[in-house]
């Protein structure tokens, strides 16, 4: 199948929650190297709150993204609240009228998520932020759409691209967030936001694949 049902997508959200919870310590540890060591804590707080508030409710994939996004925005604050909140609510917006979600739809959703994000942050590729994960992922999906590739294959390629994007942050100097304090000394270490972004995209991909 080359689509999945929007109404089955609740599972995708739970997979995203799960990966954040499992990687809480890992994300904080990476943040500890050049940031303030709280990224896993921050993310876990928001995702677990979403889980707590919505675990016994039924929702579409697009609705779940809206709920998660609003939870992050309304209860987390900081930078992560608006950043991931904007991405997820942006995705939700672009998918809200869909019954079935195709590769083209999913790519459009993620693009709309980034569109919202780009209105509130300045970071570009190479600035050592989660943008370094998000943009390669979006480009990979866009490319797969152009090539009319299979949804599953596209998702697997997106994972690879996101991973490479996240890994690339090792080579960059941080320009935003607390790591920017270190300047040159931030080189050689992953950006924790790019890792959490990869983990989330990866969880989405794996979970969607089971629904195809």
């Amino acid at each position, binding site marked *: 199948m080359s689509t999945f049902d929007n109404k089955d997508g609740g599972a995708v959200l739970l997979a995203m929650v799960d990966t954040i919870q499992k990687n809480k310590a890992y994300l904080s540890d990476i943040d500890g190297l050049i940031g303030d060591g*709280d990224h896993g804590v921050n993310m876990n707080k928001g995702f677990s709150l979403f889980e707590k508030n919505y675990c016994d409710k039924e929702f579409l994939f697009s609705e779940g993204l809206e709920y998660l996004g609003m939870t992050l925005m309304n209860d987390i604050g900081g930078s992560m*609240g608006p950043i991931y909140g904007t991405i997820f609510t942006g995705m939700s917006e672009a998918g809200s009228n869909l019954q079935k979600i195709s590769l083209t739809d999913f790519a459009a959703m993620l693009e709309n998520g980034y569109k919202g994000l780009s209105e509130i942050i300045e970071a570009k590729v190479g600035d050592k932020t989660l943008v370094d994960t998000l943009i390669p992922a979006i480009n990979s999906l866009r490319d797969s759409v152009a090539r009319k590739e299979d949804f599953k294959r596209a998702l697997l390629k997106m994972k690879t691209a996101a991973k490479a994007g996240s890994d690339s942050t090792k080579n960059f100097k941080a320009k935003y967030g*607390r790591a920017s304090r270190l300047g040159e000394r931030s080189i050689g270490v992953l950006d924790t936001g790019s890792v959490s972004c990869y983990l989330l995209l990866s969880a989405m991909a794996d979970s969607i694949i089971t629904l195809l």
Partner: protein
Amino acid sequence: MQRIMNDPDNIVDEMLAGFIKAHDNIVESTANSRVVKAKNILPDKVGVITGGGSGHKPAFIGYVGKNMCDAAAVGEIFSSPTAAAFLDAAKAVDQGKGVACLYGNYSGDNMNVKMALKMAKKQGITIKTVVANDDVASAPKGQEEKRRGVAGEILMWKVGAAKAAQGASLDEVIAAAQKAIDATKSIGIGLSPCTLPTVGHSNFDIKHGTMEVGIGHHGEPGMKVCPLGTAKEIAKKMVDIVLSDYPFKKDDEVVILVSGLGATPVMELYVLYNEIEKLIGHAGLKVHKAYVGNYFTSLEMMGATFTMMKLDKELKELIDVPAYSMGLKQE
């Protein structure tokens, strides 16, 4: 980490509970537990709100009170409040005359305020903003819009809130607050780092015998690390940086604010002020009013900030309006 706390994840909420109980003559809680509101707000006036991360006591909630901010949105330590908190703060004090949101230039705060503004618009609430950018160390001259807000925010709040208390319109309040922050320049020096309770170790260091000139309120990097100077030398550095960033001129009247960053003994702030005041005098400026104390801190960092605001007739009058908040009480 020698801290008086329970669960570090709850430190902000527990602090708020204690704060509201201790100051129930000045503030009260609201439906949003992360919004603190002044008691007995004057009727029929423009609302004045602020908000920011925790760990800066008295900022931000310490500047909620009579003739000061009407409400503040409270974030986690060193982390912006949510958009919802900014919105709820505005809603809690809106009397139909609009709300002035006076906050500091940090990416998290900018994002959350931006989103709060969107939501407010949908709900028919008018919020206008002034973004404090008084920290001259955080971006070069000409790129003032990139600068962070630091202790100068207090003077912005004082002026904006006093204007609102006088019954001014939203645009007048915004104009006064904007004028205040435009006329206000700050510089900080850091002598020791601080530790986030949730993290347990500091994520930067300041070597003994050195000081970081231009450090930010969360340990953001300064302009340079120098050998720790005497109070006289520190004052000279700070005054030179501030004087050269703005047309402060002979015979100008100024307000001076010297704030500790947390752990520096208050005695030293007076020693520093003593030197600063002499230099200001030599430059021909007149100190109209001085605030010296722990006005805007960064947990237990050692160090101090120096802030100077150039007065005109309106700013002078507004600075002199009495105020009664936890962090600023003045007759």
